[in-house]
């Protein structure tokens, strides 16, 4: 079995997790920028983080033969301070040419506030101006439905944005159709306590078909499972899905979306 982990916060994980991923058949890992669990106090803090994502983490992954790709942004949990947000967004372009940067992400909303939405729109504009792919974080729990609607409205109102170059991540049963119907890709995050289980993710694949869907672990410093994606493959096989169907969901689909960036290269390429 081969798979791509399209959303993992490896800076928060141990080196053992890289070993586990590589052993399980992972062929690439992709790391969106996110919240560290605390608010960074300065633009220099973000600059250090972007350097970590674009210079240090690829070396850590390479020790296990894993290509490491990343997405850069100001995450929505730190968007309430719009002055700092604007300063952070201003430094992002100087990192966009680095070889492992795939696009802008994970941008989005957290509590659905006005400033979060402004910071989101600023970063959609950044992505449009620099012709970058976009990876979108949708809010948690009771905020997800409203946030997904606001996000999709904002994306659709910007005529420069091609839906097929945007993935709306962390969809669940009440938001998946919103993303797919509007022409976006949709990501299903496999978490033990929130978002969705492997069984539910596979239910959604069966209900909506395999087009424009991927699964990810979004493993980070919280309760999460770096091997959630290969475990979902086992769940697909338990249901009787073919090896080809599993390969499409775990490898083909993420490769198709991510391959829209010319920087996304796999060892087999």
């Amino acid at each position, binding site marked *: 079995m081969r798979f791509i982990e399209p959303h993992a916060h490896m800076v928060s994980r141990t080196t053992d997790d890289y070993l586990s991923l590589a052993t399980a058949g992972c062929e690439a890992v992709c790391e969106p920028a996110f919240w560290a669990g605390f608010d960074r106090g300065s633009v220099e803090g973000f600059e250090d983080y972007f350097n970590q994502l674009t210079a240090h983490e690829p070396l850590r992954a390479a020790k296990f033969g894993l290509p490491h790709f990343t997405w850069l942004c100001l995450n929505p949990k730190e968007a309430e301070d719009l002055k700092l947000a604007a300063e952070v967004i201003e430094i992002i372009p100087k990192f966009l040419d680095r070889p492992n940067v795939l696009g802008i992400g994970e941008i989005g909303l957290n*509590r659905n506030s006005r400033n*979060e939405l402004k910071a989101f729109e600023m970063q959609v504009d950044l992505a449009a101006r620099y012709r970058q792919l976009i990876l979108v974080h949708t809010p948690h729990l*009771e*905020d997800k*439905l409203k946030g997904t609607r606001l996000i999709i409205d904002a994306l659709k109102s910007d005529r420069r944005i091609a839906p097929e170059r945007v993935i709306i991540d962390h969809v669940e049963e*009440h938001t998946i159709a919103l993303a797919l119907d509007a022409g976006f890709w949709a990501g299903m995050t496999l978490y033990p306590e929130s978002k969705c289980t492997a069984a539910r993710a596979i239910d959604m694949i069966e209900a909506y078909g395999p087009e424009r869907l991927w699964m990810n672990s979004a493993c980070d410093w919280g309760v999460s499972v770096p091997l959630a994606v290969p475990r979902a493959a086992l769940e697909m096989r338990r249901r009787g899905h073919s090896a080809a169907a599993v390969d499409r969901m775990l490898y083909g689909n993420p490769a198709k979306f991510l391959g829209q960036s010319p920087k996304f290269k796999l060892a087999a390429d």
Partner: protein
Amino acid sequence: MLAAVGSFLNSMTRRQVLDLYFVEARSKLVDVAAFLDRAQRADGADDFRLRSFRAALNQLNAGIPDRARRVLESLSDPTLKPIEVAGNKSACGAWEGAKATKMKSKG
């Protein structure tokens, strides 16, 4: 809404679904029952989370498909207007209501 394409992969019979998932679902059902017992035994009043939880339970036995979607929707903020300020970073799992959201965002 996109048409369901249930024929893509799902070839399990109902018997196979039950063989694969019944015991797991039973376990989760008992967990829900135990949670409600625990909450009932505890001192104090219900809050909006428990009321929302009970309302969501009604979706399960209605005999209508798309239960997961409807449960999630019943726990969701249905409004479309952004809140003024994100007073905290964490969602709690159920929507407290428009008035409470407005007050929180001010705080």
